[in-house]
């Protein structure tokens, strides 16, 4: 084995571990929902290539109001689904769309675009 090969091999293995760590094990940033005057937990989410923010922490048992604004025309993200709450909505480009529901039980609830390419998570505490 040449030196180059050894470097590439070691570097590659390191890169492999880095990818695994980066996508699966590294802690993700979380956004805590702000409590509005009326007691609803409100979060504004931008949809562009992904959901920003994509990990949202809320309190269970209180209404959650999520306002999605889609800022792209790619058809993939035209709909957002909350399968656990049987909620879904079309997101016309540039138009804020508000989804409202109450997570009764603590837990993690995923949300996603129709084909599951973009994903986010709602954590109810």
């Amino acid at each position, binding site marked *: 084995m040449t030196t180059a090969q050894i470097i*590439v091999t070691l570097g590659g293995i390191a890169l492999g571990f880095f990818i695994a760590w980066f996508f699966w094990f*590294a802690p993700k940033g979380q956004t805590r929902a702000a409590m509005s005057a009326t007691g609803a937990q409100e979060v504004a989410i931008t949809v562009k*290539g992904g959901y920003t923010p994509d990990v949202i922490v809320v309190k269970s048992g209180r209404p959650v109001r999520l306002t999605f604004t889609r800022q792209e*025309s790619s058809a993939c993200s035209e709909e957002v689904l909350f*399968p656990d709450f049987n909620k879904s909505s079309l997101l*016309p480009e*540039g138009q804020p769309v508000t989804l409202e529901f109450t997570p009764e039980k603590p837990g993690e609830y995923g949300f996603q675009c129709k*084909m599951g390419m973009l994903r986010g998570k709602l954590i109810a505490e």
Partner: protein
Amino acid sequence: MTKKDPVCGMEIDPDTVFASREHMGQKFYFCSEDCVGKFDTDPHRYAMATSATTGVNPELSLAQLNIPIQGLKKNSDSVQLESSLKAQSGMSRVVVNRAAGIAQVTYDPKVITLTKLAELVRSAGYQIGGTQTRIGIQNLRCASCVKFIEGELRATPGVLSVSVNVATQEATVDYLPEKTTLADLNTAIESWGYKPNPATSEEPIDKQQAAHEKEYRRLMNRFWFAAFISLPVLVTAYSKFVPFVRDWSMETLRLAWGMTALLTLPVLFWSGSDFFTGAWAALKHRSANMNSLIALGTAAAWLYSTIAILFPSIFPEGTSEPFYDVVAVVIALVVLGQALELRAKGRTSEAIKKLMGLQAKTARVVRNGQELDIPVEEVLVGDVVQVRPGEKVPVDGLILEGSSAVDESMLTGESLPASKRPGDEVIGATLNKTGAFKFRATKVGKDTALAQIVKMVQDAQNSKAPIARMADKVSGYFVPVVMILAVLTFILWFDFGPQPQLVYALVTAVTVLIIACPCALGLATPMSLMVGIGKGAENGILIRSGEALQTAQGIKIVILDKTGTITKGKPELTDTVLAAAWQENDLLHLAASVERSSEHPLAEAIVEGAKAKGIALSEPSAFEAVPGFGVIATVDGRRVVLGNLKMMNREKINLGDLEQKATSLADDGKTPMYMAVDGQAAGIVAVADTVKEDSAEAISALQKMGIEVVMITGDNQRTAQAIARKVGVDRVLAEVLPEDKAKNVHLLQAEGKLVAMVGDGINDAPALAQADVGLAIGTGTDVAIEASDITLIKGSLKGVVTAIEVSRATMGNIKQNLFGAFIYNALGLPVAMGVLFPFFGILLNPLIAGAAMAFSSVTVVGNANRLRSFKPKFSVK
């Protein structure tokens, strides 16, 4: 005598007032400088609000309003709403009517604005159920005009909230249609010199279609550009095979390559910009998707190529050739794939479009004695709506006057038009055939049967089938795994591959990135679900969720409730047995005339039966009902006795062989009634809850599908067996109390099979909920039956067969898709990595990988579209 200050309403002594004014021949007194100042700026407004004799005119200054409140019915606690409304100053009366979903408020519009009211309702946790509309505003460019238009709209009476969006050039207005109309809103916009787009209420589905069309054009532009650039790029990349170009010197070629490097840049960053923005957005969230793979693959190819032509010396001999072709062609192909996918996707929502197309666009309502043509969205509960022959019924309601025949086939599948009289229910979107009528709207907007059907279908189309969860799990890990595989491929080829190792390592790694297609996995289930559930809806079957659809395919036992499910649920005249010398028509004439005065369902059956035979009835006299026995009356001067055996014994009638005939009728599940005229036995009339015409056919179809059919009923064994024989059911659970039905379902489930229960959704709700799949037979406007997983809006048992067929076809399609997507990736990835190379010397060209990836997801959508040609065994109509 004190006077009232018209501004603040304070009672003041005219002798000690701060100031006074004359307006329109009337004198007004003021308590303070503030009040008189206000009056001076707008005297008319304050003068009009008062009357000279009573001070404040209650009719002018207090407004009464019915605010439709959403969600009021479900939440039983409306105290908070009431108290928070009452706490507002200027509010004089609040009545919350939960049953009607309305808060009736009497308030002072000078103190409380509608916007404020809306805010109060919202802060109490409710939504105002007004109408929302979006009005396009042409050429809205300046942000400052937004304020004016918003202000003007807000000042329009009845408007709850307004937001004008410059970016979309649209005003979103929530308003109470009883206070204002679309025309008023348009006028408000026009008053600022802007032209509203024809404010026809646009269906979201049309909007979506328009957005798809736009997106398709955008993608195609990008594709054509990338395809155009690909041509010269391909020529230089495969220069050895192109005549004339192959004679170019190395220097010329290198220069040409430099040109293609520049040419492919706009392909990367314009045609392929979605991949890069998407990949970046995903990266920021520590996630990865298809965009990440394409972006990585093409970027790596471009970077390598560019370094190779700029600094050929740092690479080993023979490895400094670029492959820009991968960049241009792969992006062109993937973008084309996305465009084609979009086209194919559009067809999957056809069923919903068809349903929405049924909706009438306008309604003619009678308000204040005037007929108004208004958009159907503005019809309110309680409006009187006029419908002429040939028109669609706009919303659900009850007929007030007039009569007609209404074609309801689009919603109920009943091919014969239903005759409608005052008091009958009419359903929105059905077609009025013959007469004109007026009806009172009972359900409008989101509450109409059609809107609920559409909503249910859409929700179901977007729900998740359990089978998709596996694909979801996989796709969560898929992309990073592919990246790791690409790195591994690079290492293996770099360490053990043939010369030039660097080129092989890079090409294979890029191919791995490009061929992997997580999209096909993600699309597999939702696309088929969309088509399958839509197909169900077209055939009158509303499937509530993907889970219900998936479970329905494995049904092994179907339990059918007898009354109303297998049978019509309404007794009918079935047989007459005649004693000597009697004619059937005479017998029925007497029997029906007697029963005319009775309200018993069996009596109604006899009257209906006689009428159906065209027999005229006489007026009975001396009518007497003997509970538990029967009835006695005099018809045409003859004493007629109609009743059971006990009645005949009481009257001491000699029955002869009639008694035996009655027993055999009873064995057939019928209810025989003896008839005696003037003390002599005249015959038997028998009524029975008859079996629906198509029940037997549907049951035999189920049995042919390998499903065991069980009948459940509260009736006695003898009646139950008789019906069961008629329709071909072997297993009968008779004499089951309504509350025990769920338990019986559970017992059948204990046999370890998937059990479906078919019932009416009201009495059978617990049993429907207990079953693995609950199918409710819906009638009329009552489609959203909570307890059911599947609603059959056509009332026929054939729907059960079709529901299972749809489920099986859809699940089959999903499995094909998932299998295809898995196999594609499971075969494609190793081939791209080069497993075939050591044995056959075959290596996958990255261009082919790009094509395969682009068309794999198109194939999935295409396969889902195949479901559109699904034909149920029993076609409707």
